[in-house]
């Protein structure tokens, strides 16, 4: 399974092995009888609801895993199993190598006080406490002195740009501001692991975008290990290092955003990817051609890690293939403007599979390319760039 992080170097921070969560009275007996082969329908007939069905995965240090699924897919249940807000029915969960499910409640409290932070969809702020007191709350239950926790809380207030509002009550804040408080609270104890349960789902689209940017900024500074739950596929694509797509408690596919878009593992996943504008999601790396014998490159070089859309115009202006380089400036591939046209305007299978958009006509002019079919007509005039 490809991962942006080298798994051989670091131990996983979160390690789930065949985690099951089944709601209902006879869950344990049913599961034992099923022998690891859980069929949701059979269980439902017996009055049980399958929340999580054999989830196995690892999350590595500094990685952001987004669990994506529609409501009832078990994504929040999975998160709650890993934070042990819900008791797991079967399976093993290790946090930094320690067996989470074997922990006593005392150990669990210690773990949460020091290693975990969580943000909730409905913000879950304490209505009787001010912004400052809410943020200081985890520090105070930990037994820090008032002065110390308030000082730290004030730093957090600044981190989420709520200065000047620290003495407001939650009811006096907008949704976005409330969630900033939720974020600040979850970060107050400097946790290693950060759980976010649909943190932006209750917000308006514009605010949501703003909060996502804010979140990316924070993660850029903090490098937490993150488990992020959302039902919004584009949010998942925007934020994730890796995405786990869940359906009926089963993880349908767990992969990088690019691989999910390019190679949906199941029909269900493919449906999500259909409407996705690839150039806004994919990096150059995922569409570049391998280096061949060619030597005639344009002067332009682009990084393999940039999103396609951001360099599309520049690539189209070049008649020769454009070099793609990695972090150390080694050439790792190339992109030709024809390929870019396929990516931008091609049908579903234009990308990655090598096939693609087959224009009804294509005329090379002096200044650029004109192509199209009965539905569309494109003229790419590159003279302006030359």
């Amino acid at each position, binding site marked *: 399974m490809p991962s942006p992080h080298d798994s051989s170097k670091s131990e996983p921070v979160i390690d789930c092995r065949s985690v099951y969560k089944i709601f209902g009275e006879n869950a344990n007996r049913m599961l034992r009888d099923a022998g690891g082969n859980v069929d949701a329908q059979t269980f439902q007939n017996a009055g049980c609801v399958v929340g999580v069905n054999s989830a196995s995965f690892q999350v590595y240090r500094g990685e952001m895993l987004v669990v994506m699924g529609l409501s009832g897919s078990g994504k929040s249940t999975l998160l*709650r199993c890993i*934070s042990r*807000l819900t008791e797991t029915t079967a399976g093993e969960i290790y946090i930094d190598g320690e067996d989470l499910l074997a922990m006593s*409640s005392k150990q669990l*409290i*210690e773990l*949460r*006080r*020091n290693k*975990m*932070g*969580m943000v*909730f*969809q*409905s*913000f*879950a*702020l*304490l*209505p*009787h*406490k*001010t912004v*400052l*007191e809410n943020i200081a*709350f*985890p520090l105070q*239950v*930990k037994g820090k002195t*008032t*002065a110390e926790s*308030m000082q730290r809380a*004030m730093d957090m207030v600044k981190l989420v740009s709520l200065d000047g509002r620290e*003495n407001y009550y939650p009811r006096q804040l907008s949704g976005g501001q409330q969630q900033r408080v*939720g974020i600040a*609270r*979850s970060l107050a*104890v400097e946790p290693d692991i950060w*759980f976010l349960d649909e943190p932006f789902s209750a917000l308006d689209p514009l605010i949501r975008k703003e909060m996502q940017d804010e979140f990316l900024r924070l993660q850029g500074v903090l490098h937490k290990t993150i488990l992020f739950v959302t039902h919004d596929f584009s949010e998942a694509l925007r934020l994730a290092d890796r995405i786990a797509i869940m359906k009926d408690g089963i993880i349908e596919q767990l992969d990088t955003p690019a691989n999910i878009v390019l190679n949906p593992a199941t029909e269900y996943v493919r449906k999500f990817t259909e409407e996705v504008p690839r150039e806004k999601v994919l990096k150059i790396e995922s569409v570049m051609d391998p280096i061949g014998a060619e030597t005639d490159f344009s002067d332009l070089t682009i990084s393999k890690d940039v999103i396609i859309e951001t360099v599309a115009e520049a690539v189209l202006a070049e008649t020769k293939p454009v070099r793609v380089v990695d972090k150390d400036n080694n050439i790792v591939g190339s992109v030709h403007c024809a390929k870019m046209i396929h990516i931008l305007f091609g049908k579903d299978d234009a990308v990655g599979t090598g096939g693609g958009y087959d224009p009804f006509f294509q005329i090379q002019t002096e200044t650029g390319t004109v192509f199209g079919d009965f539905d569309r007509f494109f003229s790419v005039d590159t003279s302006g760039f030359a």
Partner: protein
Amino acid sequence: MFDWWPVDVYDPDLEEYEQFALLREITRGFSSVVLFLIEFIREIFVGGVKTIVTFTSWEFIRENPWAVWPALPWTVVMGGTMILGFSLKGRGLAILAGIALSYISVFGQWEPAMQTLSFVLVAAPASVLLGLLFGILSFKFRTVETILMPLLNVAQTMPHFSYLVPVTVFFGVGDHAGAIATIIFATPPMIRLTLLGLKKVPEEVVEAALMSGCNNRQVLLNVLVPTARRDILIGVNQVIMQCLAMAVIASFIGAKGLGFNLLLALNQLRIGQALELGVCIVLIAVVLDKLSLAWANQQTDYFSDLGFAQRHKFSLIFAVFFALCILAAFLGQYIFKGGINYFYLIPHNQGITTEDFWQSGVDWMVENWYAGLQGFNRGLIVNVLQPMKAAFLGMPVSATFLLVMGIGYIVGGLRSALTVGGFLLFIALTEWWDRALITAYMTTFAVIVSATLGMIIGSLCAQNPFASKAALLVCDTLQTFPSFIYLIPVIMLFGVTDTSVLVAVIIYATIPATRYTIEGIRNVPPNLRDAGLMSGVSKLQMWLKIDLPLAFPHIMLGVNQTVIFALFMVIIGAMIGTDDLGQFILKALSDKQGIGNGLMLGLCVAFIGLAVDHLINTWAASRKTSLGLS
């Protein structure tokens, strides 16, 4: 009852063991603790020797005449309350406290008021703590809830009086008995509201607390209880009101203070004095209520870097004020003549009083309005009340059963029919069926009038957001008045008759009907009203076709409250002479064998209330569901 399980008890005076029933020892021990607390607080306010006696002996007092605990000068108590009010909420509360306490002092009611206060200061915190405890227990353990709920239902519909007899049997007579009766009466609503509040705490808030690393205790005390604060505070407010309502009723079993004096004044028909005492009770209720609210909502400033003087500013001001008042009280000895020190305590006979004014007002009304009032009075009694009473009493028992169970069947099927039938059967099997019918007739009459009035007033006020707010505020204020207070003005107008009782009941019971009507109509989804407007309805059509049908389930919950309020008030009406169940409960009080009777009568009243409660709640719930409002 007290022969059961005898134990040996050591008597230090006789220096030997004596045999006493275990139960008696437990209850007496409990009584003495409560009594000690009340007297300790009381002596802080008004002085005395009993606290010193508790730790020494009467002989010690006799030998050392100096050993008397001095009372706090009233100026200290007033100033202290004002400073407390200011530190908690600001100027408004300080002024309110100042006005309230100076009124009490200037009108010469200081001593009884402090007696009542000491009693409330023991009963109210005890009720709040017990209520919280049981509320939390029933939240944590379902079994506790299932056991407690039916008990609470009965407890909340039992009239105040019926608690008194059992309490005197177990705990004797006196302030402590009054306090215990009050605690028993005030705890159920507190339990209920605590549970309600805790159940409303969102799951995610608890999860957030767990993820913050709270242990069980921290989740409970730092998260659950404060988050449920709103409902819990309503509970505290109810407790305070119940305590002051009971201040009067508890005086039947020996509680001293304003209530006792009020009862006396009412019995002597000294309307003016009763009014002044009533105002004192209301003022204490309002100040306590506002102080407790402000205390629960106070805010802390963490970053102001304050010196010692600033941090302890209020304590320091109080200390200075305390010294000044003591000095004034000391000097007062020399300033005022006749051994009365106005800076220390204004005695009962020295306070100003408006009694003559009210008395002459009553006299004037009797002189000028007598014919009219009496005409109304007689007309009501002869033309409405007596025929109605005759109809209730004349109905065959089987017909009553058929009627009530039939309604039950229509509203909630066989189950409801059997439930209300069971309640009725209990009453029918006691010897007070006819008395219960009289109670029922008075309640029915009052409820019909109250509900109509409440719906009309409520509907009118609901037309305008400002008027709604004002009306709700008035309802809030009126609800702070102990039920007893309503009897005072009506006796002024109608003398001691059934009409008086009914008018008082109607005024008291109209409050919930009005409140729920306003809330119900204001909560009608605005898009439905818009849809109505766009269909071109007139104001009247809006009210009849949209507001009322949609708000009706909620209004019926108000009517339910109206029934319970009316029932309580009818029973309290026994004090000014009625011939229903209440009168018998009152009689049971002075009867040695009264405990059984008192309880049975109380249950009769409770079951009338529960039957109506069951019918209305079942109907409202199903109606709300079918309207999609729940």
